[in-house]
């Protein structure tokens, strides 16, 4: 199952590593990553696509705790076969 997360973060040096570290440690695989600085350059828009069999709330609740995460929205859940 693929899950797409729209995340707004502060634009700090390790923020992407933090997202990826939590994703890996909590048992999800990275399926896509897009990153765009917002116009003020102080924050980033990140689209994180992950796959995993576990309920996605186990990941989103941990990502929410990252200090640099300002907003997090679970956009969609789609079957990997359909998105392939």
């Amino acid at each position, binding site marked *: 199952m693929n899950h797409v997360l729209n995340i707004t973060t502060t634009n700090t040096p390790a923020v992407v*590593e*933090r997202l990826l*570290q939590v994703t890996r*440690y909590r048992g999800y695989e990275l399926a896509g990553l897009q990153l765009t600085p917002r116009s003020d350059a102080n924050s980033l828009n990140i689209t994180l696509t992950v796959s995993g069999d576990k309920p996605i709330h186990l990941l989103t*609740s941990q990502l*929410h*705790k*990252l*200090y640099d995460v300002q907003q997090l929205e679970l956009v969609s859940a789609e079957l990997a076969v359909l998105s392939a």
Partner: protein
Amino acid sequence: MKGAELVLQVLQQHGVDTIFGYPGGAIMPIYDALYQSNVKHYLCRHEQGGAFSAIGYARASGKVGVCMATSGPGATNLITSLADAMLDSVPVVAITGQVSQAVMGSDAFQEIDVLGLSLAVTKHSFMVRSVDELAATLHEAFAIAKSGRPGPVLVDIPKDVQLAEIAYHREPATAAKAAAIYTSLANAGKARALIAAAKKPMAYIGGGVHMAGAMTQLQQFLAANPMPSVTTLKGMGSVAKDNAHYLGMLGMHGTQAANLAVQQCDLLICLGARFDDRVTGNLQKFAPHARVIHVDIDPAEINKVRFADAALLGDMKQILPAISAGTDCAEWLSHCAQLKQQHGWRYDHPGERIYAPLMLKQLSERMPDNSVVCCDVGQHQMWVAQHMRFSSPRNHLSSGGLGTMGFGLPAAIGAKLARPQDTVITVSGDGSFMMNVQELATIKRFRLPVKIVIVDNQRLGMVKQWQQLFFNERYSETDLSDNPDFVALAAAFAIPGHCITRKDEVESALEAMFTWPGPYLLHVCIDDKDNVWPLVPPGAANEEMITEAKA
């Protein structure tokens, strides 16, 4: 003023008067500033020890613990202790020196990517790029460390930032955004209905209750809603000693009464705990008849391992009164009292040799009120949890989540400095003690009257116990019968000591230890065949305990 001086100014602004650390090249400007500072620095003899002392200080006092190290190896030596603070939710601020920004990224001498290393072991971490950000970053670090679910925060400060000049304007510490605690009582009605309807309610109490400052509310809740209670390792001391319905610790080495009652209950009220695997045993078989109320400050713990029928997030102090409904479960209370009676500890161990559970019970009865006991990890740690009683979780410092050997001695140093008026005792094992034995030098230097009790079975006892039970008695690398002479070792650090081997020596030895005004080491030799019982074997449900009689 230099950045280095600013660091100390901000620390003082947060009320920090005690820090633990070890100097080195990349943090020399801060150590130079310390030379004339009112902040008292305690030199540890290994950065891991210094950070454990900061943890002991924080856990014994409820304040934020602060430790410092240089770049490279100094910082990497902190990692284990930061992981310990992370898993036990201890508020710690760690400050590390970093090489100058001009050479960062060039594999400079003593350069390592500390920010990268910190990701898995801290609540948050910062690299300070400019002296202009320094004060605000440090304020933020304190705010994060103690807000919500507490945890360790690392601030990496390059040497050039420490040396840079800045005009100092004292900023209010409140400028940092401290995450407000959002408390949701939306499910309070549901929780009250569950409590009112329960025939067999059970309170399962973790470290989160005392960390929320909700000890009073807990006693009131248990008085208004009489029910049996159990605690985790970190929650020990949460339930008042005169509460007759308290059943002890639950889990792998919990009491039989606690485990049996939790397995039978129809409502489990989890307060500031997280269904750790050492608590639940086989998760699928854990408290199989129970509906669950889960109260925590961390939303990520709700439904992480066990579904909550009613979850309440936020401030325990507000939530406990809001879920009080009154209970009517006299039959259940008497059943649990019977379990407690039936499965009480026995101390009639045959023979002359010292029986550690009895010795620890004697220690518990003899130690002054409000003593702090710092454990290491292994068999002695579980015996302490089983056979000693505490009046507050701040008096029982044990490495819970990470299970870090080497925790006890440095944690005791921190606890003694946090609470100089209270007796501080380290109970260690012969394996664990050697893991941070260098901190005896810290005790010597500052003449810290820490009492050290080494429970010595000449083995890595807990691993040996598992080898005996689950690995066909193949005792791989657990024989420590060539241990050093611990009393002679203590003497090398000007710490007097005494060795005992017989039961009838225990009382007088404890008396001598407590009477001696300074630090003291009591070496207690026990039989290597003594094991920790009961034990829930891996994969089993908590009612399937192996007891000494069955083993």
